[in-house]
């Protein structure tokens, strides 16, 4: 179980701090929504370990994650944009998710190829992110996140700005991932995304 326990954070110029508190079970999706500036991205960054809370704790299977660095947390993220290294091709971007030094086995290579096929990007491995559409980039980012096999998936507006085909494909992928037991924290403005994917909704 993921437990966010009285997690308090405020930026230096912020008057009243945020206080996050909720629990989610594996295989469930919690949707976070609220107006711009309500703290959705901040919560994601706190969970991922990119920001340090002032107090409170994040527990996964009763173990605190607060002292763990981002790479040591059982978490992987997909944001609305800037998920890929622009100067590295698709294969390398995904490969770095599997091994941070790109020391890939033949099984890893095969996993990448099959993964690209499964998200409709067969033959796109050598392309640069800049040569892909928004939807294709998000598929690559999501594939990398899924191949990392982390039990918690953070999604910060992952479907915003995508065309309907891309949205449909990514929603299906996320539903499958949820069915496999992955815990999803989804920050989304979109009512339809929340309705389709979320088991509970948390308004900020």
């Amino acid at each position, binding site marked *: 179980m993921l437990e966010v326990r009285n997690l308090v954070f405020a*930026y230096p110029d912020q008057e009243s701090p945020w206080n996050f508190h909720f629990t989610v079970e594996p295989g469930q999706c919690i949707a976070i929504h609220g107006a711009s500036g309500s703290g959705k991205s901040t919560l994601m960054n706190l969970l991922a370990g990119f920001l340090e809370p002032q107090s409170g704790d994040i527990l996964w299977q009763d173990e605190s994650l607060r002292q763990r660095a*981002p*790479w040591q947390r059982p978490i992987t993220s997909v*944001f609305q944009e*800037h998920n890929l290294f622009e100067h590295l091709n698709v*294969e*390398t971007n995904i*490969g770095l998710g599997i091994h941070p030094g*790109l020391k890939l*086995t033949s099984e890893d290579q095969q996993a990448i190829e099959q993964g690209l096929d499964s998200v409709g990007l067969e033959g796109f491995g050598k392309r640069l992110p800049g040569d892909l559409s928004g939807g294709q980039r998000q598929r690559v980012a999501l594939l990398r996140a899924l191949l990392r096999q982390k039990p918690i998936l953070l999604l910060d507006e992952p479907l915003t700005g995508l065309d309907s085909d891309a949205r449909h494909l990514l929603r299906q992928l996320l539903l499958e991932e949820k069915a496999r037991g992955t815990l999803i924290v989804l920050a989304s403005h979109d009512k339809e995304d929340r309705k389709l994917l979320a088991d509970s909704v948390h308004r900020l």
Partner: protein
Amino acid sequence: MNNLAKRQQHGLPMPSTPGRPAPFSRPGWQLWPGLTIASALVLLSVAGLGALIWEASLPDISQLWQSRYLRTVVTFTIWQAFLSVLLSLLVAIPIARILARQPAFPGRAVLLRLMELSLVLPSIVAVSGLVSVYGRQGWLTGFSSDWLGVSWNLYGINGIVLAHVFFNAPLAARILLQAIEGAPPSQLRVAAQLGLGRWWYWRAVEWPAIKPVLPGVAALVFTLCFTSFAIVMTLGGGPAATTIEVAIYQSLRFEFDSGQAALLAMVQLIICGFLWWLAARRGLTASLLPDRRVASHRTKAGSSLQARLADGTVLGLFVLFLVMPLLAILTRGLPGMGSAFFPQGSFSVNPALLDATVRSLAIALPAGLMSVCAALLILASGTTSKRPAITRLTDVAAYLPLIIPPLVLGTGLFLLFRPSLGSSSEGLVLVTLINAMMALPFVLQMLKGPLGSLDSASRQQADQLGVLGWYRWRWLHWPRMRKPLALAMAYGTGLSLGDFGVIALFGTPGQPTLPVLLYQQLGSYRMDAAAATGLWLVLLLLVLFSVFNRLGSPLHKTGLATTSPRRVPEPEHA
């Protein structure tokens, strides 16, 4: 059931799991090597200066205003540096404005590269070119005395300031151009829409753009002119035109008066140190090197023909000012090169030239490499540490070599290590070390931007993926740094190759480097041989730059883009 087991159950591909953490991923690896080098630099500088003072107790400070010689030296140093800054900026500002106004004309990119040449063109070579144009027998002197009845004496303050302007006006113009081209696009759009005239365009766009960098540029040019050595040695006209740096050399080499040298060094340190302290306090040390990317210009099209002609005329004169000495080096050097490489009609390299070349490269290549490695490590520790004291230490270490006279540093270190520094080859090791230190501020400036160009989104991605330490360097920094590193290596090596300061003190006349050989040939009036050596030195620099440029070009290798990485905007929080 864990995620992995479920994945297997669903028949999805199974990637292998990563093993050990990335090599060199502990924060200490980014902090300690650079911090050690920075501390060593500060310690070596202080110890060098201390050794000099210890060796021969500091003379009475009142000598500074009582001794006529010392007073003249200090006053002259400040005066010539002030004049050089003033004239360099008077040339640089209009040239930068014209280049910003004229975004596309044939040869613009070549001109911009030519303007960077002053960073590496050895002063002694440039001086030989300037003498060929403005000297007693020079092209322009002959033309002006024959046709206009005007003549001048290049030696003394005239020549020193002219050479300083030749070196520093292009550098300053290049930095100011960069500042103008970096003006906010919104301002440029508004200015273009309003059709502002030149005066108002200057007031509204250009002046606000260059104002923040102008004091830093002035401080940089002032320091370079204040500490100038080779130019004053060759063009100075006796005691009346001697700078502190040359006086230190004379004290050490001829008068064996290390006390006086230390006193002068302290004066230099105080003046330049105060200047850089002021500059650093106002955050002026950034952007003091030209960015090699040729910016695409975005504004102010449609000048009148008359205005374009005026711009063209000024730019033409500037190009002549830059190119004439270089052409002189080429035309005078070519015949000499014939006798250096084909003495009896068949190819055989002049042994003196060959020895000097090998010796120069043996000093310059390790010096370049050392400066690049030191700069990288210092930058890494400066960015890793969040403690202001450490960041300040790395800043001080980086800019210290700009203000401490290399001769003083060299002498101090020589005295410090004297029992173990006996042979000339050990002296050359010292020269290499000091050359590396002297190149450090420039190399550091070159690498600072590219190393810091990793945006926060990429850093966060890398953090989450565990792309740390060596892996981060390999996959994220190296593709961005490859070219700047090669360029920095070329500049570091080039600066050392053209050094005629430290080597003049520690080198032995029988074992000259190329600049020393050139100086010896100039001193013995073997002008053809000197011209050939000068040209050979320039050619060597060109080869060096093209080799490093080739090495810096990205390989067509799987996984890496051949284009330079694009910056992504910083994400907004919450």
